[in-house]
Every structure is written in C-alpha cells, then in structure tokens.
C-alpha cells in the first residue's frame, strides 16, 4: 500500500515536471517558428508557482470549488492506469486494475469535472467553450473508438500491457506499422485532445477569453494547470503504448513522448482555427474513414 502510494506520488510528480517542461518547450518552439525569442524553458514552473502562492481568490460555488480536484484526480488517475515502462516492476501503479476501455472512459472524468466547474462559474463564455469542447470531444471519440476497436479486435486484447507486449518484436511490429491508418487517425485525434490548432476551439482566445477556466484564478488555476500538464503526459504515454511500441526504458519513454508532443505543436503553429461545426465534421469523417480502413482489414 505504502509502496503504491509512493509510486503514484513519484509518477504524478514526474509527469507534472515533464508536462511543464514540455509546455515550456512548446512555448519556445512556437516562438521560434513565429520568429520570436519566447519565454524561458522554466516559465511554466514560474507561472504555476506564482498562481499557487497568490493570496486572494474567489469562488462561485461548490462545483466551482471541486472542479480543480476533479481535474487533478482525473489526470493522475489516467496516468496511473497506464503502464509506463515495459518490464519495470517498481512503478506499475494501477495498470492492472483496468484495461484500455477503462482508461478511455476514465479520461472523461477530469473533463466532466472541469465542465461542471465552468458551468458553476456562471460565466457564459466558459459554458460556450464547454459546449464546443463536448461537441468536439464526442466527434473525435468516434474515430478514437474506431482505433480502439482496431487494436482490440486486431490484437484480441483490451489490456494495454498485452498491446505493448505485442509490439516488442522489432520496430515493424509497432502498431504504427501494423495499423498505419488507425495510427494516422489516432494522431489526428491527438490534435483536438491537446487542444492544438486547427481544433483549438475550446480555448479560442479571440472569441471566448480562455474557455472553461475563464473564472478561475490563483490556486484553483494552478490546480488546473497541473492537471492539464499531467493529463497531457498521460495521453502521450498512452499513445506511445498503443502505437509506438511502448517504452523499454525511462529514456525511451521521455524521448518518444517528446517526439510525439512535437507533432501537435508543429501542426498547431501553421494552421488557422476551424469553425466549430467544421471541426466536428472534419473529425467525424476524415480520421474515422482512415480508421475504418484498418477496421475493415481487421474484420476480414
């Protein structure tokens, strides 16, 4: 029990650090593409600390209060349900308590909590953002579900552990090569998951200030930030596990997640934003069609 708590604490902290670092990198990379110098690598740490230490804070009600906790619990929960490094018996966390379906559905936990908090804030913009976000989420989940089905039916398992183990026979056994279309579809869905352009309709600053967390400030916002950072890492780890052969060591985990993280950033900096219904339709049809190709292959 103690070891489990310690392992979870370690994982969560590591993910927080890695997530904030990746965030810092992304800000730097974006700035360089834009031709700016950009902030420091540690800027996100500084921001987080500043928010956390702020004395004054407001709240709008119980759900507003609880939403950051939902966010943090949801993010760490997803992270600890996913196996991190193949063969590492020290840090296994809760990855044997559930399979891919559980992880996919548990990913909604944090989102739901944040949405509820946004709702309780009473700010119309926050709720507009939630309405957009939910609409978009339901759209990319269509193709992501297809991807999950491809993996589950193709490898005859839902266990993430076994999905990783099935990819250990060299790089060509990665699902990236086994199911290229499904992987492509998954990578497209990664964009809205990471709120990257052209799918950044939730945090669209020109339209609705910053979306759901509009009313959040100080410590609440620092929780939100941490949650988002951890959640981002959890998603990357999940993708690495599903398509890129998992990670055989901590280095390879960091490396793979870093590379994967760069993908949305590069796409994000060069694309403008979709309108909401365009985004929804794109996500319904394009990635789903890609995944459907592999789904058909799996069925036949």
């Amino acid at each position, binding site marked *: 029990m103690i070891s489990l708590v310690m392992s979870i604490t370690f994982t969560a902290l590591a993910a927080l650090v890695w997530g904030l670092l990746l965030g810092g990198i992304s800000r730097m990379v974006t700035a360089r593409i834009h031709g700016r110098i950009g902030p420091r690598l540690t800027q996100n740490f500084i921001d987080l600390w500043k928010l956390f230490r702020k*004395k004054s804070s407001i709240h709008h009600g119980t759900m507003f209060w609880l939403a950051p906790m939902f966010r943090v619990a949801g993010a760490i929960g997803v992270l600890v349900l996913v196996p991190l490094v193949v063969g590492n018996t020290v840090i296994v966390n*809760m990855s044997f308590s559930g399979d891919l*379906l559980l992880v996919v559905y548990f990913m909604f*936990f944090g989102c739901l909590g944040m949405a509820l908090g946004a*709702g*309780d804030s*009473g700010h119309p913009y926050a709720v507009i953002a939630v309405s957009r976000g939910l609409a978009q989420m339901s759209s990319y989940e269509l193709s992501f579900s297809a991807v999950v*089905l491809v993996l589950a039916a193709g490898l005859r398992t839902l266990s993430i552990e076994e999905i990783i183990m099935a990819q250990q026979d060299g790089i060509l056994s990665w699902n990236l090569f086994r199911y290229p279309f499904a992987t492509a579809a998954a990578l497209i869905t990664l964009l809205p998951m990471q709120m990257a352009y052209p799918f950044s309709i939730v945090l669209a600053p020109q339209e609705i200030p910053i979306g759901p967390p509009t*009313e959040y400030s100080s410590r609440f916002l620092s929780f939100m930030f941490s949650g988002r950072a951890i959640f981002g890492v959890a998603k990357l780890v999940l993708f690495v596990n599903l398509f890129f052969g998992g990670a055989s060591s901590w280095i390879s985990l960091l490396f793979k997640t870093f590379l994967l993280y760069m993908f949305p950033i590069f796409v994000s900096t060069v694309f403008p934003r979709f309108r909401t219904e365009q985004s929804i339709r794109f996500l319904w049809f394009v990635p789903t069609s890609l995944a459907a190709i592999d789904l058909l292959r799996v*069925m036949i």
Partner: protein
Amino acid sequence: MVVALAVFLPLLGAFISVWLSRRKPRLSVIVSRLFLAGGLHSTIVLSIKLNAWSFSDLGNSIILRTGVGAPPLSINLEATGGAVIAAIVVYVAAILGISRLTSRNVKTLPLLLSLVTASLGLLFATDLFNSFVFLEIGSIITIGLTAACRCRRRWEVAVKVALVSGLVTILYLLAIVVIYKTTGELRFEALGMLHGFPALLVSGLMLTVIMTEIKAFPLSGWGLDFYEGASPGFAGVYSATWSLAVLMWSAGILPRLPIPNLQILAWIGAGGLVLGQFAGFRATSPGRMMGYSSAAYASILLILAGTTTGHDYLQLTLVLMIFAAIAKFTVFMLADPENENPLKSAAGNLLLLPILVIAGIPPLPVFWAKFKLLSILAGVSPLMLAAVVLGLFLEAVYLLRLWSKRPVRFLKNGRLVPAVTSLLMAAGAIWLTAGFWRSLSFSGSLLSSSTLRILFMTVFGAGTLLTLPGAWNRIKGERSYWFWMLLSGISLTFLPMAGNGITFYILWEVSAFAAVIAVSRGSRAAAGTFWFAVFAAASGFLLLASIVLSRSMFIAPGIPLILVAIAALFKLGQMGAHLWSVRAYSAAPATMSAFMAGTSSKAAVFLLVVAALGTGAVAMPAGSVLAWAGVLTALSMAVMAALSSDYKKVLAYASVSQMGYILIGLGLASVMGWTAAIYHTFHHFLFKMILFLGAAGVIFRTGTSDYNRLGGLIRRMPLTFTFTLISVIAFAGVPPLAGFGGKWFLYNGLIETGWLPIALIAMFASVVAFLYAFRLLHAVFLGQLSTVNARVKEAPLALLVPQGILTAALMLFSFRPTLFLEHIVPAIESLPGLKGVAPVINGTIVTTPLGNWNAWAVGMMVMGLFGFAFVFYWLSGKRPKHVGQLDIGFAGELPPSAEEVHYAGNFFKPYRRALAFLPRIHAGKVFSGITEVFKIAGDSVRAIFTGDARTYLAHSLIFLVIVLIYLRGGI
C-alpha cells in the same frame, strides 16, 4: 307465468303510461319504473330458475305456451338462459335510461316500455313469424323514438331507418313465404329442413336480413347514420335494449341457416371487420365511432357463428354482446346532448372503463370472450386470425382516440348510470376472471432462472415502492394518479411469476393500461396519452396473437416470436416507437415518468429475455437485427436528447437511448452480451429513477421543465443536484461509477463476437451521451440562478428519500459490482443456448478474455486522489471568497447592466449545424404517413356509405345477389 310477466309487464306499463303521462308526467315515470322493476324481478327469478349465472347451462329453457297446443301447432315464447341474461340487461338499461330519455318529452315513455316488450319478445321468440312481428314493432318504435328527440338530424335518420326496415320487412316476408311453402313450418327448426333451391334462397334472404338488422359491415350504413344522428340518450338505450335483442336473436338464427359450409359466415365477418374498422378509423364523431364499433361486434357475431358451435357459441355470443351493450350504453349515457359534439364534454374518468371494455382489455369481461375467440381462430385459419386482430386493433385505436379527447365535465346527475353500469362491468370482470382462473398460472415457469426472476421482481417492486411517495406531490393541473401507478406496478411485480402466456398477457395489459390512465392524468398529457395508448394496444394485440398462435405459451419459434419481439420493441419505445415513449415520458406526471422510464420499460426487457430463452436456440430471430435496431436507437436518441431543451424530454430521449444498449446486449446472444444487458437493465433502473425523481422535484418546485427557465438550482436544491450528478456520471459510463460496467461488458461482447461496426456506433453514442448529460446538469443546476427561482425550496422528502436510497445502492454497486455480478453471471451462464465465455469473477476483479476491470481498486484510487487533491488544496492556503453570480469577469467587455446570462437554449448549436447534411426524418411524420395510408384506405372503404338511404338499400340487395350467386356456386 314468470315469462309472461317478464315480457308483458312493460307493455301493460306502456298502456298505463300513455294515459298517465298526459296528466301526471312525474308519476308516470315512477309507475313506469315500477313496471320495469317488476319485469326485471321476473327476469331475475327466471335466471335463477334456469341457473343461467353459471354461464354453463345457457341452453336450459322455460317455455311459455300462448296457444292451446304444444309446438309446432301454437306460438310459444321460450326463455333460454342466455336470452334471460340479455333480458336482464335490457331491463337494467331501460330503468337507467328512462330519465335521460324522457327528461324532455315524457310522451316517449310508452314507446320506451313497448321497446322493452319488443326486445324481450324477440329474445324469447321461437318462430319466424313471431320474430317478424316483434321485429316490426321494434322498427316502428325505433323510428318513432328517433323522430321524438330534439336532434337536428332526427328526420334524416328516421327516414333512413324507415326505408331500411321497409326493405328488411319485404325480404324477411319473402323468406317466410319460401320457408312456409316448403316445410309448412315456421319454427326456427324449419330452417334446418330446407334443401336445394329453397335452402339457398332462404339462406341468402335471411343472411341479408340479419346482417342489415345487426348492422354488419358492409350493410351497416344506416346504423352508422343512426348512431351519429340519434340523440345520445336514445342511442344508448337502443344499443342496450333493441340492438342487443336483435343481436341475440340473430345469434339464434345464424347457425341454423341452411348453408353447407358455415365458415363462410366467419370470412364475411372477418373481412367486414377489417374493412369496416378501417373506415371507422376515419370517424370523427363519437356517435359514429360507436356505430363502427357496433359494426365490429356484428362482424364478430358472424365470425363466431362461422367458427364455433354449441356451448362455446352460446357463451361467447352472450358475453360479448351483453358487455358490449352495457359499455356502449354507458358511453352514450355519458354523452351530453346539449353539445354538438356530444361526448366531448362527458365525464372522462367514467368514459374509460366502458371504452376499455369494448376494446377488450383484460381482465375486463369482453377480453375473455375475445381471447377465447382468437384461440379458436388460431386453429381455424391464421389469415382470419390476422384479419380479426387487425380489425380489433383498429377499433381500439379509434376508441382510444375518442377517450383521449380528454372530456372533463360531468353531466348533472349523470353519475348514477355510469356507477351502476361500471359495477356491472366490474362484476362481469371478476366473475369471468374467476371462471378462467384455472387457466392462469403463477409458477414463474416462463423464466427458468430464479435469480433473474428475483432481479426483475426487485426492479419492478422497488421501482413501484420508491416512486409511490412522490405521486402525492402533484403540480397544478395533475389529477391523482397514485392508484393507477400502484396498479401498474403491482401487475409488473407479478409479471416474472407468470407461468403461461395468458397470465403474462393479462398482467402486461393491466400494467400498460393502468399506466396509460396514470399518464393521462398529467397536466399536459393530451399529447402523450393517445400514442402511448395506441402503442400499448398494438403491442398487446401482437402479444395476444402470438399467444394464441403458439397455444397459450407465446414462446414458440417462427411468427409468434417475431410478434413478441415487435411487441417488446414497441413497449421499449425504440426508434420509431419512441414517438410514444418520448411524448408519454415528457407528458406524464413527473413521478409517473420515473416509474415508466425506470421501471416499467424493463418489462419489455423481461419479455425479450423470456422470448429469446423460450425458443430453445437463444438467438432472437436475427440477433443482429435486434442489435442494429438497438444501436441506431442509442445513437439517434442520444443526438435528439442533446438537442432538446426540455428537462423531461431530454430524460425521455436519454432513457430510450439507453434501452438501445440493452437490445444490443440481448441481440448478441452470448453470455457476455446478456451480462451486459442484465447489468445495464438493473443499473439503468437505478440511475434513471434517480434522474426522473430529481426532475420531478425540480418540476414540482419550479413548475417548469424548460431549460431556459431553469439554471443555478444547485444553490437551492443541493441534494437533488448531488443525486442527479451521481446518476449522470453513472449513466455516462464514466468510471468509477456503475454505468461503465455495462458498457465494458457490452464492448467485450461485441468485440468477442466481431460486431465491430455496431461497437463503433455504440461507443460513439455513449460519447454523445456526454453532451446531454452535461447540458442537463448545466442547464438545470449550474449557470446562473434565475430571479424567478431565487426562493425555491429543496425537493420534498418524498422524492429525496427514494433518490437517496437509490443513490446508496448505486454507489454500493459502483464500488462493489461483484456483489451483483457474482449472482447474475452464474445465472446467465446457466441459461441454455448462450454462446461465448462468461466473465470470471475473482474477488473484486472481473476478467474477460480481452481485459480486466477492478472496480473496487479504481474506485478507491479515484477517491484517494480526489481526497488528496481536496485536502492538499484545503491545507495549502486561505479559503477563497465566495462571490455572487453576477460578479464575473467579462474580459474587458462590460455588459450594459448586470443581468443574468444563463446559457441553456440552443446549446449545441454547432452540432446541429454539423448535422445539417442529414435528412430530417421525423418519427411523427413517419407515423402520420402510415396514418395517412390508413386514412386513405379508410376513406376508400367508407366512400360506400354515401349517406343516400337508397345506397344502403342497394347494398343490401347487391349483397343478397352476391350471396345467392356464391351459394349457387356461380351464375
């Protein structure tokens, strides 16, 4: 002597009242009543003498000799058991109808009394000429009484009745001439002595005469006009006196007709029933509807004459005709003559019973007869059975439409009549149900697994008990409905105990129609009730057909099974049939919606389970068809739920959508699929009940279910919000709460079977569920509190306590699903014929061939993390300050004034836009399309009733010619 008294006391009364009514009108009414009471007494004495009430020796008789000799030399009256019971009905109707009929014109009193004598004469007549005399007396009085009312169209009706009875006289006398010339006899037995051409001629003539007299389609034109145009008071008395007598007399003649193959009568009846009821489907005036219903009963009489004999025939005709007569009499008595559209203002509550009696809903008396008739027909010809079932269904539809016009006002002093007749009908129901008791069975043998039986009984029983307290909190405009809800719930609770089809059917129908009544008592129920009733009737008739086809157990493969499956889908309110479910759920009183969506929808699941198991090979006719139906429902209804902005409507769509998952699970026909289905059935019960009860509380306190007028209620109703939140998280399938399990088993089953496209759509649908789940929470409880609702209170305890109990159960099974699964999985595994492997339960871990799920661990982890975050926040700094709902940052934009900005309507507008490429298929339009086809069919049928009296005469003559040609075997 008693017979003579029974027949002629009213005649004596008639003579006296002629004299008295001019001088002492009031006294004359009293005296007439006394004479009628005397006659009634005599008939009751007769009935006891004949032991008629056992309904088993209806052939017993007492003969009254009027001449010097014994038959055939003299005219005799013969009181048989059946005729005596009909006579009692005639008397009761006359006594009850007298005040209504004579309230304006006391001079009609002698006519009424004479009509009773004529009716009794006809009931007791033994020979053809005697019958002729009574028939003519009856016709003359009918014309007279029609003309004596104050209705606008009385003359037109009178002319038509006169013309038709003129023609009947001629045809009947011709028949008498032929019979007498050939046999020298006029007793009914003479009909059997005919051979060759005379037999043919007499058959044709008598059949035409009888069908015209009993108003069987297609010779019913004049009868329809009569029922529509005559005063409701007279039409009512007529239907329970003279019309009943003519029907019973015809019932005596029909089997004696010298036709080689009497079954042709049944075919004429069945054809007439379908066509006539198609026409009736189009009727708008209540009187005309009753006319068409009358034609239906005439057709049924023909069917009975063609397919049954002896004791069955006597019993069935008697039961059908007397109870239909009583019911029709009641309907007319409730009609208000002041009104141009008479029944609209009559008493709605009392109207329902007679209408259900006529429609043959169990356990009302007519049902038993119709059930027996259908059982017999199943052995005769499935085609005839189908025709009759369709006809009866169409009849039920327009009768229910008549009722759902929601009449509200009582007539002055109008309660005695319906009270007495309702008692009679109830007594009949009890009497006949007791008679058929032995055919019922409560062994529970339809579902072999006692675990599942107990599970379903728990759902039904607990659902009833938990909704019941809430039924006392009614909002404005709702009438008391707890009794009907309780009745529906009790029948449901016994449903799993049913041991055979008929028992199941009765419980099913009682539950369904009790629910219809309960829904109709909502404040805005008019929209929902009619389609609910129609689908309930449709699923009932399908079930009935399958029961009689498979000989009492409805679980035979082939056609019965398909019928059962469709019945269950109708009941579930699946896509297509969601027309009723969504309307009814949103129109019903709020607690009733909880009962229906949470509890009674599970009856259809039970039916499907039973039906699937009963076929031996568990797969439903096509499991994949079922699964596709389920998944399309799940998706389309979820989208509809996301886009509607009415609290109850959203829950209704959501409920239908969730039932789709159960269908998929059952369609899989694997252990995994069924585990998913049963798991989801139980948990759907838990969280849908919580949701609807929560909605009931909100609607009870705020008086609205419109999203745009709600919002921010978390501040006023925190407990309701908490329960709703938990159940929303549960049904959205978000771990760690219970809804996830159902989805997990379902996808496991789908992937195991390889139904990936279905799995994909199901997954998508379950994500769309988030849309309406969040929108619901936000629009009602979050956002900004409207000033209108600033002072609402928390929901009443009667709603909160059941929600609390259900939530506790939900939490328990969320964290420890194995407590539930370790009973259910072995039970499902032991069911015969299910393929695939079962999930393995080991401690708190459930394992399938594909994956594993440790709900306890996940639950603890989430609680731990959540608790950690909470405590960490609590300890890490000062408490935040609470600010008002208008203190929000507008990012530099300053609203002109502080105003509420609750965003609830048109919530997923982009979604709607993105969906714009889809054609809009509206279920209402689909059904109005079907209705349109029915209407066109009805219109083309009823076009023959031109309203011109001579057309009606032509019908009779053409019918005569056709029958003669047919009987001759060609021209």
